[in-house]
C-alpha cells in the first residue's frame, strides 16, 4: 500500500484537475449545516466539517431516483412501455467523506449487491464512485464508531484515506480506483516512511472517542423474548415517527416505488421510505402489521441490532456516526437502546409477555 504526501498548497489545484475526469462531491456549508453537494468549478470540499447533517448515501442512492419513463400517448409506438431512464454513471468522486459513511456503503452492499439480488441502480452508481476519505482527528462527542465496527481512521469502503497532519496531508492509497484518482490529481510524492506517523495519529484519534456501545450479547439473545421485552413502551413513548433517524442514517436503505404521470408521460421512481412510517407496512387490505408506534420503533432497533446481526453475521447495521442521536427531535438515543437490548435478561424482565 502506497502513502502519498500532499502539500496543502497543491490541494486546491489537484481538486481542480480532478474536475476534468470526475464529477466531484464533498461537504459544503449551507446555512448552519454541512451537507454533501456536487462541487462547482473552483468550489472546494470543506474539510473542517465535523460531519454532514445528512449522510453521503444520497450520492449513490438519491432520495428520489427515476428508474423508468413511459408514455401513455397511444399514437406512439412505444406507448405503455417502461424504458430505462438515462442516468449519468460517469465517474464521480466524493472528497472528504468520513470513514463511517464509507463503511456504511459496505453494509448497504450486503443488501443491494448479493449473489441472489442485484440492485442495478445502486451497483452502477457505487461502481462509478471513488471514495476519498478524510480521517477524523477530532471525532464528535456522539461518535461511537470504534464500537460499531468502524473507527475514525477505518478504511473499509474507501479508495484512499487522507490524514491531516497539520502541515500537510498524508494519503493512504487503498485501491486501484484511489490510485487512478491520485494520478489524475497529480498528487504523487511518495512518503514511504509515514506509515508510523499515520498509525500514531490513528491511535490518538481512537483514544478520543468518548462514546460507545456494547454489542457482544446481541446475537445470543432470543429474538422472540427480545421482541416482547417490556422496555419497548419506554423506548418508543416519545417517538413522533418522523423517520428523521432513518433519513439521516447512512445505513438505512428502504425505499418505496411510485409512478408519477403528468399528462401523457410519466416516470417510475423510487423514494426513500422509512420503517418509522405507518404507510410503510400498510397492506392493501387495510391491515397494518406494524400498526402502532411501538411496533415501528421496535422494528428499527430490532432490524439494526438484532435481525441484521443474525442474518449477515457482520456486526450491527450501524457504523456509529451518531447522526440519529443528534437529529432525533425528541432525543431517542440508539446507544441507550442498544444497552437495554444487549443487557436484556428475560428472567428478570417481569413484564415480558
Amino acid at each position, binding site marked *: 500500500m502506497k502513502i502519498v504526501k500532499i502539500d496543502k498548497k497543491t490541494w486546491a489545484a489537484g481538486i481542480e484537475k480532478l474536475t476534468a475526469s470526475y464529477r466531484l462531491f464533498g461537504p459544503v456549508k449551507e446555512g448552519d449545516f454541512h451537507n454533501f453537494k456536487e462541487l462547482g468549478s473552483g468550489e472546494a470540499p470543506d474539510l473542517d466539517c465535523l460531519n454532514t447533517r445528512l449522510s453521503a448515501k444520497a450520492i449513490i442512492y438519491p432520495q428520489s431516483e427515476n428508474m423508468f419513463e413511459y408514455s401513455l400517448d397511444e399514437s406512439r409506438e412505444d406507448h405503455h412501455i417502461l424504458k430505462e431512464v438515462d442516468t449519468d454513471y460517469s465517474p464521480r468522486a466524493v472528497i472528504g467523506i468520513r470513514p463511517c459513511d464509507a463503511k456504511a456503503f459496505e453494509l448497504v452492499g450486503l443488501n443491494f449487491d448479493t449473489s441472489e439480488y442485484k440492485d442495478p441502480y445502486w451497483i452502477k452508481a457505487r461502481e462509478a464512485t471513488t471514495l476519498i476519505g478524510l480521517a477524523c482527528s477530532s471525532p464528535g462527542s456522539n461518535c461511537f464508531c470504534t464500537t460499531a465496527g468502524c473507527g475514525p481512521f477505518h478504511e473499509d469502503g474507501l479508495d484512499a484515506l487522507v490524514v491531516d497532519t497539520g502541515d500537510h496531508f498524508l494519503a493512504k492509497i487503498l485501491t486501484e480506483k484511489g490510485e487512478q484518482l491520485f494520478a489524475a490529481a497529480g498528487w504523487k510524492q511518495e512518503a514511504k516512511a509515514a506509515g508510523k506517523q499515520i498509525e500514531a495519529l490513528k491511535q490518538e484519534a481512537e483514544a478520543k472517542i468518548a462514546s460507545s456501545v456494547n454489542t457482544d450479547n446481541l446475537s445470543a439473545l432470543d429474538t422472540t423474548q427480545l421482541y416482547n421485552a417490556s422496555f419497548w413502551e*419506554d423506548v418508543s413513548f416519545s417517538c413522533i415517527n418522523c423517520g428523521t433517524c432513518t433519513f439521516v442514517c447512512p445505513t438505512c436503505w428502504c425505499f418505496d416505488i411510485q409512478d408519477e404521470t403528468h399528462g401523457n408521460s410519466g416516470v417510475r421512481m423510487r423514494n426513500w421510505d422509512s420503517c418509522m412510517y405507518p404507510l410503510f407496512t400498510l397492506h392493501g387490505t387495510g391491515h397494518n402489521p406494524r400498526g402502532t408506534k411501538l411496533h415501528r420503533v421496535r422494528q428499527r432497533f430490532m432490524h439494526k441490532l438484532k435481525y441484521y446481526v443474525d442474518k449477515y453475521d457482520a456486526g450491527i447495521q450501524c457504523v456509529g456516526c451518531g447522526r440519529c442521536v443528534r437529529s432525533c427531535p425528541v432525543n431517542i438515543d440508539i446507544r441507550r437502546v442498544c444497552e437495554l437490548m444487549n443487557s436484556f435478561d428475560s428472567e428478570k424482565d417481569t413484564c415480558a409477555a
Partner: protein
Amino acid sequence: MLSYIDKIKEISSRLLKDGTVDMIIGFRRGTVPMMNEPHFAKTTGDVEQLVWDSNCGINLANYLANRTEKIGIIAKGCDSRNIVTHIIENKIKREQLTIIGVPCKGMIDKRRINAMFDGEILQVAENGNTITVSGDGFEKKLEKDDMLQQNCRLCIHRNPVIYDELVAEQVEEQQDIDRYADIREIEALPPKEKESYFTDLFSACIRCYACRNACPLCYCPTCFVDESRPQWVGKSQDPADIKTFHFLRAYHCAGRCTDCGSCERVCPVGINMRILTRKLEKDSFELFGWEAGLSMDVRPPLDTYKPGDPDDFIK
C-alpha cells in the same frame, strides 16, 4: 425555572400515589446538550427521572390524543392551550386529565446557540437567566432572554390557561409584543417574490414530516399526504409537492395553532414553517378576534357560523 422541578416531582408523586392518575407525562434528561426527552412516569420511582429546564420545548399535548388512561400532564402556557384545543376537539376528556401547570419563561433556541459556535458544544448549563455554553477550548455565558426560540420571544400566554395544580407563582406576561412584524413583510411582497421566498424557505425540506408529527393538531388517522387511494400529493422531492404539503397542513391548523414552536423545533433541517401558521393565526385574530386554546366554552371560528362573520375576503 430550574426550581420548578422539586414541586413537579412532589405533585407527580402525590398524584401517582393516591391513584388520581395512572401516569405523568413530562420530560427526562436528554443525552445530548439542549435536549430533553418526553417521558412518562408510572411509579414514584420513575418520577425521580423527571426534569424541568429551558430545553422542554416539545409540546406534550401531542402525547395525549386518544389515550385512555388517567393522565397527569406537565403543561407550559402553549401546551395548556393545545390541551384546551384537544378537549374541544374530543381528543381527550377533561376528566381524564390532571394538568400540572408550569408558568413558563421560555425555551432556548438550540439551533441558534449551536450556530454561534464553530466547535462542538459539549455542555450547556443553566442558572437563572445565565446559560453557560462550553466545549473543547471554549466557554461562553449567554443571557437566556436573548437566546429564546422565536415563538417564545413572541409569546403572550406564558401562564397555563387551564390547570389543576400550579408549580409556581404565575409569571408576568410579556407586554407590547409585535407578533407579526415578519409576516407583514412577507404579505407586502409582490407575488413573484413571495413565490420565491416560499421556494427558498422549503428548499431544504426532506419531507420527513417531523413538523406534522410533533404538532398536537396533526392527529388525523391518515394525513392527506399519506393517503394513497386516491393519492393527492406526489412523494418525490418535487418542490410543488413539498409546498403543497406545507400550505395545506398550515390551513388545517388555522384557528387551532398556538404557536408552541414544536414544529420548527423538531425540523431536522431548521425550516421556519411557522411563517405559514402564524399568517393564519394573524388572520384568525384580525378577522375573528380569535386566539386558539384560551377557552373551553367558545367554539373556534372555523367550526361555527355567525351572521356577523367577516366575508369581504371572499372575492
